[in-house]
Each structure stands twice: as C-alpha cells, then as structure tokens.
C-alpha cells in the first residue's frame, strides 16, 4: 500500500469510549480498530447513534473529560499514543497536525468574530506567523477553497455568507496550518446537493494536493462511494465491516451493509419500486442485545447469533474484515438465509418473506 517508512499516520487500536448515564453505561464506541496512511481517505459510514461522531471526537481527544470514559484502546498518531495527552499538548496537535470540519458551519464558526480573524487565529498562535503575513496567507487560503472576493470576506461575519460559503471557510480554517490529518464529520449533511457536490470536490482536491490523510464521516453511502480508498461501516458502536471501497461495493459481506444498501432509493430504479427496509430499530446502547448487535434485525440470523458475539474476521478478499458468522456471498450465509426463508422467520423472529 504505502511505501513510506515509519508508523502509519493514524492507528486506532481496540478503542472504547463509554459514557456514564443515569440509565447505565452507554458504550458509544466499543472496540474499534482502524489504520489510515498519509495521502489516503477513509470513509466511516453509519446511521445516527452508531458511534461515528464519538469515534471522531475520541481520535481528536475532543470529548468532555467528565462525561466520557476512555474504557480502553489506543489512538496512535504517527506512532504516539495521544489518548492520555493533556490539553496543552493537544492544542499543539489540533493547531498544527489535525484539522476538522464539522456538520454545521453556523455553529462551528464564531458568529461575532470576523472571518479573517477566525482564519488567522491558529496561524498566529501555532505557526508564529505575524499579523501582515497571516492576512496574506488568509487571502490565499480563501482563494484556494474557492471563495470569491477573498479580500472583502476577511472583514465579514459568518452570517453574511451562505451555508456553502461558510463551510468553505471552515475548510480553510481546518487547512490553515497544513495539517497531516483532516477529519470531516458529516461536512455536507446540512447543504443542498449541488453545494454538497462543490464541497466534496473541494475536500477531495485539497486532500490530494496536500497529501493528507482524511477521514470522511457520513450516513450516506453515496458520499463515500467515489471519494474514499477504504470504508468502515459502523453499527451500534462497532465496525461491522471494513474493506477497500471497490471491494465493499462489489463484494460486501455483512448483512447490515447489504440491508443499508437495499434501503437506499436508487435513481436507476423505476418509480414505486418498493424499498428493502430494515425492520426494527437500532439497539438501545445502554442495554445491548447479547450476541451479534444486528441479529434482532438481520435476515440471516441463526440461534448462534443470539448468544455469541461475532469477532472481527477476515473476509474473502484482501484487506476485508467483518463481524458475521453467516456472511453474505458465502455458503454459510446462503444456507442461513435459505433456512430462515423456509421457516418464514429468523431465530430472532424477524419475518423473512
């Protein structure tokens, strides 16, 4: 894969982030492992509550110390475990090495500070750039993210820009110190499709140009299909399947990934084509089911899935891992489905027609 020597840019090992709640312990991220090399893009896909945002914030060490329990695992940034680092050291990392773009640019920008000042803050703080140089760099940055009339924008406030323009500004801020890692958490969810397209193009172009490692987090499989090298699918706090992008779409193996694909309305289908909806709802993260977390909604579920938790195992193709005893596209999977179809229901009493 990568010919570069040394440790990978980012390595997440068996990461667990839990929260103490009045209802009990909420296992938001529960045993996630990932690797990201420089110059590569990793997509993380999951529905709300799957733990993808907590995962991103755990990687960034951006979780409230009082609420979150680092229940185990490591986050290695260039080989160094950053999980235990204090705020001082993290500030340096956030400033210089890691950039982040969040979903809602209106809340991630300060409404009462001019664009220019927000943009140059970390440059002056971390890169030791003087006032005049910072302004010139800021203009350059705004131009590179495609903001028209950048000189004028520096003296404007966020509310004077449209949603798409604001997101361009947050991208510029994230890129200002030339980070090695860029995390984009649902960067286009609040935007219209034509603007989403512009912002995704921009992120991809900047990632390539700067040879950054990028993590693109989204609930939309369409967003990651053509813009990532590898994809991790999350469900109930775990990565249930991880594979190179091509492989995931051509030879997916986890029933949840299959079900997710089946529930997306497709443009190429005729109108009124019934969707293959996933029955039920994601589990209560405080009271997780025994065995496989997806089993209560899965078409393939057998008795074993209800009592034994499937470990992460290698799939058919290289670089492909999944958590399933009866994976899609294998003999075991075919038999499990045939058995459920014959019985009319799964071991968890989900009707299979």
């Amino acid at each position: 894969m990568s010919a570069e020597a040394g440790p990978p840019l980012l390595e997440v090992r068996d990461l667990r982030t839990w929260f103490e709640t009045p209802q009990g312990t909420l296992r938001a991220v529960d045993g996630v492992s990932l690797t990201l090399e420089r110059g590569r893009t990793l997509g993380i896909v999951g529905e709300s509550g799957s733990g993808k945002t907590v995962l991103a914030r755990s990687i960034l060490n951006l979780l409230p110390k009082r609420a979150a329990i680092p229940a185990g695992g490591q986050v290695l940034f260039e080989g160094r475990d950053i999980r235990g680092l204090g705020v001082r050291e993290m500030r340096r990392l956030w400033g210089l090495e890691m950039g982040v773009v969040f979903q809602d640019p209106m809340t991630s920008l300060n409404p009462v500070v001019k664009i220019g000042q927000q943009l140059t803050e970390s440059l002056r703080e971390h890169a030791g750039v003087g006032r005049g140089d910072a302004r010139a760099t800021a203009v350059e940055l705004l131009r590179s993210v495609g903001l028209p009339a950048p000189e004028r924008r520096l003296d404007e406030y966020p509310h004077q820009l449209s949603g798409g323009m604001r997101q361009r500004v947050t991208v510029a801020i994230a890129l200002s110190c030339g980070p090695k890692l860029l995390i984009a958490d649902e960067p286009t969810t609040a935007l219209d499709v034509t603007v989403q397209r512009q912002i995704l193009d921009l992120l991809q172009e900047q990632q390539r140009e700067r040879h950054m490692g990028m993590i693109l987090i989204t609930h939309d499989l369409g967003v990651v299909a053509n813009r990532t090298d590898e994809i991790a699918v999350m469900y109930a706090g775990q990565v249930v399947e991880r594979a190179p992008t091509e492989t995931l779409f051509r030879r997916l193996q986890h029933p949840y990934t299959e079900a997710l694909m089946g529930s997306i309305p497709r443009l190429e289908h005729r109108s009124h084509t019934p969707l293959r909806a996933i029955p039920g709802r994601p589990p209560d993260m405080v009271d997780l089911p025994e065995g496989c977390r997806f089993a209560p909604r899965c078409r393939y579920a057998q008795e074993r899935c209800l009592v034994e938790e499937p470990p992460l195992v290698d799939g058919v193709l290289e670089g492909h891992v999944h958590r399933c005893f009866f994976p899609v596209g294998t003999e075991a999977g075919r038999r499990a489905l045939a058995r459920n179809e014959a019985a009319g229901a799964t071991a968890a009493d989900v009707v299979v027609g």
Partner: protein
Amino acid sequence: MAGSGTAHLRERDDLVLRVDHLVVEFPARHGATVHAVSDVSFDIAEGETLGLVGESGCGKTTTGRAIMQLPPPTAGSVRLRDTELTELDDRGLRRTRPQLQMIFQDPISSLNPRRRIRDTVAQGLRIWDDQPDDVATRVDKVLYDVGLDPDAVSDRRPHEFSGGQCQRICLARSLVLDPDVLICDEPVSALDVSVQAQILNLLEAMKARYGLTMVFIAHDLAVVKNVSDRVAVMYLGKLCELGPADALYEASAHPYTRSLLAAIPRPEPGTEPADAALPGELPSPIAPPSGCRFRTRCPRATERCAAEEPQMRAVAPDHFVACHFPHTDNQGDP
C-alpha cells in the same frame, strides 16, 4: 410579471387539486419583496402523487403551505375538487381541512409533547360538535394501520418515541380524518436511511389503502422518484420542468434538472459525475434575475434567456419544460 405558462395543465374530470398562477410574496425590509413563488401552476389527478423537488429556497415548501392556505397565497387560485380554497372564509376553510392534510419534516416537534398519542390522533375527530361516537375504535385502527400497536402506544407521549415512530403518529393523525389529499413536506429528510425506507414504503401502502392523492415535497431526487407518478422541478420560485417520474430522470430536458441529477452522490464506485459541479449559488429571491431565473448559473444561457422568460412547453407526451434551449437527447441510463 411574466408567467411560466400553463401548457402542462390537463383537462380531465378526475382532477383533485388544481393550482393556477400561484404567487406567494412576503414583505422584506426597506419595502422590498421576497418573491417566494412566482406564477406556478400544476394539477393532480385522483390517486396521483406529484413530487415537488428543488433545493432550499426554491419555494417548494411555500407552495405546499399555500395549498393549505397557511398563509393564503398573494395571488392565484387553488381548487380542491369544486371548491376554490382562496375564497373560503375561516370557517369554510376549517370545514375543508379534513380533506386536506399535511405531514412535516420534523415529526417530533410537530407533535404536542404534553399530549398522549391517543388524544393527539383523536383531536381532528373531536374538534367538531358532530364528532363520531366511535372515535376510540377509529384511533386504534389507524394506529394499527401505520404499524403501531394501539395498546402499547396510546397512553404514551411523543418523547418516548423515535423519529420514525413519531412520523408514523403524525401520519395516523392525518389519516384518521380520511383525507382526499395528503401533503408531505420533507417527511423523511430528518430520518436515517433504514427508517426512511420504512416510512416511504408505509406512505405507498397508506396511499393505496386510504385512496390518497399526494403532494410529496423533498430535496432528494431519488426519494421523490421512488414515490411519485409525476415530478415537478422548482428553482427560485418557478417551475423548470414537469413530467412522468421515470421520463424526467431518463430524459431530463432542463439544464437545471440535469445539474441536480449529476450532483447526487451515487452509492456505486465508478459513477463519479463527468460534468463540472453547478457553479455559484442561488440568487436572491428579493431581486430574481430577469427572464429565466436559472440563467445566471446555466451553461446554456444566452442573451435571449435574460430578455425573455421561457414558457412551459411539451417536449414529449406529458413532459414539459420551461427553457429556450432544452436538452433533447435521451440521457439514457446514467
């Protein structure tokens, strides 16, 4: 103000809803006017679903609300079967409400948090003096129809339910009145993909069971295509194109429709769109461009587009476009 034409309106006996030259304007600061919807016309036949699609600010929600007379439009006509809604007084309008129901984007905030589900759903039936005596039975039946267990949910309150379940409750609240027309304003945009599919399938099933005619408003073209018979594409308060759902996607004629379709990220590798992204942003609805409102971002625009507003005209049977230079090639399977 120039019109967008009415060539796409049909002469049929089974029209349930007909919107003619609808204009909705709002006052803005310094005496300016927001032109939210400017001369939009369409009709919907019995049992049809019309999809209204476009990006934020295109006027699709305002159009939906103007049909409901919430608020009444600035000009134009909205006919529900033989009733002209814009001429009704408050009481007359309230009397027609049971025939014309609506569900919204955020199902949780459109339910009263303090009211039990049973009472929320029954409210529409109880509001009149002549309320039926089988309210409880009807409420149970409709809850069951939308996939909820009446015994388990009736006494609970909205906060105990997920977004998808709340949307089912909202749907039950509308359906209990046995409406003719259901207007759905972005009913699935706040939901996760797996739940979205459940609700879309449910809407299709309820449409058949309750004999509904629907207006389905959404920004996601794939979602709109899935449930609609005909689709109308809006841009900055105007109709661009209207046609059968399948034809509109296979042979879209308006450059804006093509840009929208090209911008949709597809869940298949190797489908990266070849065309460049649509440049620029939506112009202000306070001072919309002259002539064709899309011309400032259109790759095909000429001087004619600035001078003369395009009128709706047929490009194929039941397929209409408001453009001086429409695409005429079949784009086939994208």
